[in-house]
């Protein structure tokens, strides 16, 4: 016990004496939480549309007006040449081309049906997809209006209509930040846990002090606990700063209990600290540790469901996410913060992350050798 106290005393002294770490601890959460959620916004607006009007009728103009009046579309080109519209797409000035062929109005009136052509620049898949959906719904609306105009005061509805009304639970205003902030908190905690712990241990290898420690009768578990506990505490401090910032700037107050959030964070940190420790046992220099941590974190974050929905990943990637501790914490944070899930609801997550913790730490401890 006394050895552990001595070790912790020394670690905390060094941490508080290192301005770089202190800055990292306080500035990183602020930047990440204040800038990222505002920038990483998935709502698609300002889709540039080129309308190729080869009909020049009152209906084609009405449709064009309706589109440009929508908040989603900017009418950038209005032309009667399809090639000109495509050129605008090539120059990246337009995302969507809508072609209204000649005889559009005539066909609509006489044949009771007309065709439109839509071309989407699919380089940005999300934008193309949503642009197509928005445009289709505007055209449907337009269709309804035309129909209404023709059938003045219908005695009965010629077609049965199903009207759908929906309500958005847990995030009623579809505020993207509510979705992002809990996830970013997870990234913060993970970085502190895995990065700082790995770098700290490898630094001792690099400057040679680890030799001096290995030549003492210190026990392996004492040394490792002495290294893990400080970063475990720091991780929880960062989480608290993050939760405070989320409350001040985004008004996000966890629906569920803080106790659940912290309990999960405590276990989760053990798992990521184990990862950091493991990385440190396989590397000799801070540079190596940094590069490996960076690679691992990159994969974990990109495949952790922060930016992209796991449900829409291919099967192999979905299976991978099951082995990614980050996924579980992001899910838990969203569940507890937005939905108010209780400890009982997240019990599977907790169990799995406990498993990760045991596995990673055991591996790291076995691989940490006082004698080479």
């Amino acid at each position, binding site marked *: 016990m*006394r*050895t552990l*106290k*001595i*070790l912790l*005393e*020394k670690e905390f*002294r*060094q941490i508080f*004496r*290192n301005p770089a770490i202190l800055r990292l601890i306080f500035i990183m959460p602020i930047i990440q939480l204040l800038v990222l959620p505002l920038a990483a916004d998935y709502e698609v607006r300002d889709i540039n549309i080129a309308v190729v009007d080869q009909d020049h009728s009152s209906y084609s103009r009405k449709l064009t007006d309706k589109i440009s009046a929508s908040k989603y579309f900017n009418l950038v080109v209005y032309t009667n040449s399809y090639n000109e519209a495509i050129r605008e797409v090539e120059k990246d000035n337009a995302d969507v081309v809508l072609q209204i062929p000649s005889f559009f109005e005539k066909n609509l009136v006489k044949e009771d049906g007309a065709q439109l052509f839509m071309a989407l620049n699919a380089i940005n898949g999300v934008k193309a997809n949503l642009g197509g959906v928005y445009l289709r719904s505007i055209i449907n609306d337009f269709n309804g209006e035309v129909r209404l105009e023709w059938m003045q005061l219908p005695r009965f509805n010629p077609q049965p209509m199903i009207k759908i009304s929906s309500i958005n639970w847990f995030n009623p205003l579809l505020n993207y930040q509510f979705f992002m902030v809990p996830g970013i908190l997870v990234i913060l905690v993970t970085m502190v846990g895995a990065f700082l712990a790995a770098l700290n241990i490898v630094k001792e290898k690099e*400057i*040679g*002090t680890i*030799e*001096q*420690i*290995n*030549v*003492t*009768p*210190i026990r392996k578990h004492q040394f490792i606990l002495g290294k893990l506990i400080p970063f475990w505490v720091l991780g929880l401090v960062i989480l608290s700063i993050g939760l405070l910032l989320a409350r001040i700037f985004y008004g996000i107050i966890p629906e569920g209990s803080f106790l659940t959030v912290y309990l999960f964070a405590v276990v989760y940190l053990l798992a990521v600290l184990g990862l950091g420790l493991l990385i440190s046992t396989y590397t000799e220099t801070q540079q190596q540790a940094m590069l490996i941590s960076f690679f691992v974190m990159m994969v974990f974050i990109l495949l952790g469901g922060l930016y992209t929905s796991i449900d829409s990943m291919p099967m192999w990637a979905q299976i991978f996410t099951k082995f990614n501790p980050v996924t579980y914490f992001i899910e838990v944070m969203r569940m507890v913060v937005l939905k108010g899930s209780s400890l009982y609801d997240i019990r599977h997550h907790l169990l799995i992350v406990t498993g990760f913790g045991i596995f990673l730490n055991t591996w790291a401890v076995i691989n940490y050798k*006082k*004698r*080479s």
Partner: protein
Amino acid sequence: MSNRVAISVSGLTKQFGDFTAVDAITFDVKQGEIFGFLGANGAGKTTAMRMLCGLSLPTSGKANVAGFDLYKESENIKKNIGYMSQKFSLYDDLTIRENNRFYGGIYGLTDEQIKEKTQFMLKHLHLESQADTLVKALPLGWKQKLSFSVSMIHDPKIVFLDEPTGGVDPITRREFWTMIYEAASRGTTVFVTTHYMDEAEYCDRVSIMVDGRIEALDTPAALTKKFDVKGMEEVFIQLARKAKRSDN
């Protein structure tokens, strides 16, 4: 100096793949002796020393350090030895007092003992005014003397010093050797490597390693006589010239 054996090594070998860094070395070091462990760069001195300190596992051979078996009782060995590595290995971002507290603490000294030791050390090294200075602010000579004192904080039976005076000025080297003599006079066995042949002359006995093997082992006087030369420098050059490998 007594006749009891502090370190007993027999056929100790360390291989890294095909490369035999230490090739079946055999020697004894008596308690309270200052044992000089010489050899050119890459001869295998540091590897041998790291094995004796329990930092590196031998490939084969037997060794007994401070009465404990190197394979089975390495943690007991560690309680009884001090080690000062080639690299400066105190914490730069801690003060002298804090370094003492840390190393004293992990050797299991009580607060009282640490305080007493620190007081004594500061006085001895004339560093009282620097007790709360960060170690990185000290000049190299002081740092080396400090490292030596810290490696002796738990009064070990044996202290291993790996090129303790590398890069240090002649006055500090002299002071350093005074400290070594003091330690030896208190009964501590000193196992020291060096490239300075004047320092080799200060040792009770020296061994000279060439290409992983011990080529000579005796008192400096006996060695100079045997090789019929003026001093250790020439003994060393004659032996080391035979080396086929070098690290640079």
